[in-house]
């Protein structure tokens, strides 16, 4: 599904290298987790893959289903099936959540040459999906993320994911700012979307999210590189011993 080779990325504005040769392959239908200390480049990886401005790719490739995505516009990557659940979802005052969702869904459908969803069809689907995430009608009407609690914002991200039905989902620290109950709800939402045709890349600082979203593969990232790869047990090792041991071991 996603194949990243020797990816080197720096900041556009200053001479600073952040990713220093990332190699990563996420197979179709699998859930991969990336863990790592602060400043290791995890969030940068998610931004570069989704096409945010301000980064410069100096070397390497990233392919989604065999197509190089690094030269594509963010919206083209989205239409190709890439989704990023933001660590800090953005507020858009005055724009109803429902309007935002419908505009996004139809923009992607249009880009893929599919027919747009009618208002009635859309409403039906959105209500169904919102219900399982405990998102009520009021939250669908309110402006996008404005005045939402931390938990509401993250649930809203998962609702967007559910509506857009992407192939490759990147979750950037989706657990940050969530209490246990909210995290469970979000994890359930994600698990409901797990599917043989859909892959996940779950970026997290802590192991606890991985108790709820069980990964197939765990990577440890440090200083702009994947330094260790293993099974779910690797996450437990981090939880018990911290990053220091692993980093010392690979150094």
């Amino acid at each position, binding site marked *: 599904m996603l194949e990243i080779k020797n990816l080197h990325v720096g900041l556009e504005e200053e001479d600073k290298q952040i990713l220093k040769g990332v190699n990563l392959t996420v197979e179709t239908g699998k859930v991969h987790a990336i863990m790592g200390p602060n400043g290791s480049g995890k969030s940068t990886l998610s931004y570069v893959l989704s096409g945010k401005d301000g980064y410069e790719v100096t070397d390497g490739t990233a392919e989604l289903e065999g197509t190089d995505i690094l030269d594509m516009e963010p*919206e083209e990557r989205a239409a190709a099936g890439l989704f990023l659940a933001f660590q800090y979802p*953005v507020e858009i005052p005055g724009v109803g959540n429902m309007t935002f969702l419908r505009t996004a869904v139809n923009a992607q459908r249009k880009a893929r040459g599919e027919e747009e969803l009618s*208002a009635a069809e859309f409403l039906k689907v959105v209500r169904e999906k919102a219900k399982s995430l405990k998102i009520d009608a009021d939250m669908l009407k309110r402006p996008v993320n404005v005045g939402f609690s931390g938990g509401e914002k993250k649930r809203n991200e998962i609702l967007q994911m559910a509506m857009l039905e992407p192939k490759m989902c990147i979750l950037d620290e989706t657990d940050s700012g969530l209490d246990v109950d909210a995290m469970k709800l979000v994890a359930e939402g994600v698990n409901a979307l797990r599917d043989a045709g859909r892959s996940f890349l779950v970026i997290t600082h802590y192991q606890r999210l991985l108790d709820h979203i069980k990964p197939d593969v765990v990577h440890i990232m440090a200083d702009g590189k994947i330094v260790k790869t293993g099974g779910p047990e690797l996450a437990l090792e981090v939880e018990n011993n911290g990053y220091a041991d692993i980093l010392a071991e690979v150094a």
Partner: protein
Amino acid sequence: MAALDDVQVKEGVDQETVEAVQSVGGKYKYGFETDIEIEYAPKGLNEDIVRLISEKNNEPEWMLEWRLSAYRRWLQMEEPDWAMVDYPEIDFQDQYYYARPKSMAEKPKSLDEVDPKLLETYAKLGIPLKEQALLAGVEAPEGDRRVAVDAVFDSVSVGTTFKDELAKAGVIFCSISEAIQDHPELVKKYLGSVVPQSDNYYATLNSAVFSDGSFVYIPEGTKCPMELSTYFRINAENTGQFERTLIIADKGAYVSYLEGCTAPQRDIAQLHAAVVELVLLEDAEIKYSTVQNWFPGDEEGKGGIYNFVTKRADCRGDRSKVMWTQVETGSAVTWKYPSCILRGDDSQGEFYSIAIANNMQQADTGTKMIHLGKNTKSRIVSKGISAGKAQNTYRGLVSMHPKAQNGRNYTQCDSLLIGDKCGAHTVPYIEVKNNSARVEHEATTSKVDDEQLFYCRQRGMDEEEAVALVVNGFCKDVLQALPMEFAMEAQALVAISLEGSVG
């Protein structure tokens, strides 16, 4: 269906906007010209031209005298220069003051006699003139909302729809030239009573040379059975458009009035100086909505309409209520301050405005709320959006006179900047002359945020769609104040006007 419609209308952008953006492709959509024979008055301005306009309209002597006195006054006046707009000097002798389609020389008795080319023009603009085809595009889902249209083409009104049906309700809706002939007592009583001849340079000019416009009278206790609308179209070259609108809402009357404007795309700037007067007696209510989409000039600032407009409402009666809503997207230069004189006790004035300036456009717009009566209330919500190299100024006056006990005003003034070469300015004037009045003013300035745009794009929208969505969100408070059909059109316009403003 009710819930669905709710979603579409009340929430920011929707599908129509997206489609409009995609279909129009960065061009001014209404820039076409109608190929029709036009009859001009000789170029330039003098007493003879004033006489000629009056004669063309078969006006009585008193009207001619009124025009001439305005013209003589105008000669003594100087063009104002206090607004934050900058444009080459206007040569008032290098303009035509009267142009009409030849086919209109004999006034058609009904719409069936109107030149099909004219009807085609309005059809192309999406304005259904023919009563048979009336509801295409303006029909609300319930199917029972209809809009009567008065269409003004260059200097003349080409037709008014639904006249008979309105007459049954006692409503007079016709061109002002007809009203001068058919209802002289009303015109004499009210014309110039809200915006006096001497009010300002452009209003005085208009008083001398106005050629046509709309006239509305809603009798006592009558709720106008449908929305009324005037559609202004400048077609002829080098021609100024000077229309005059007079709306009188008698005691307890209600009317919602819509005004739309477009013009062909031309290299040479054209002058538009209109006057709108609203008179409200006791318990009357008028909603006046404008979607102004005159040609804004090209990216280098060539051509476009110079829009110098005086609009004022006089809440003469107690408990009367007026609401101005304007969406200003066009014109090279806009100079416009729809105002409310809150004379009656407990009268209310509201002003909702979206002003978008892109490329080289300049807008200096706002409102005046003059509180004279007791317990008068006013509310101002202004959203200014600047993009390209445009300059956008909000200029407003809130005045509480000594007798305006317990007067209240709330003003909210928000500016949004797109890019780093445009400007937004806010110039509020506040005069309070009694201690019981309360005046609040809030202002914000923000930029369209890169994070917001990236968020939208990550979800699949292209950059222009994303900007349109964010800007429509910014304007939401005002869009909601518009009648439904206009809200849709306005949303689409917001998107179109900002094309090419990013990236």
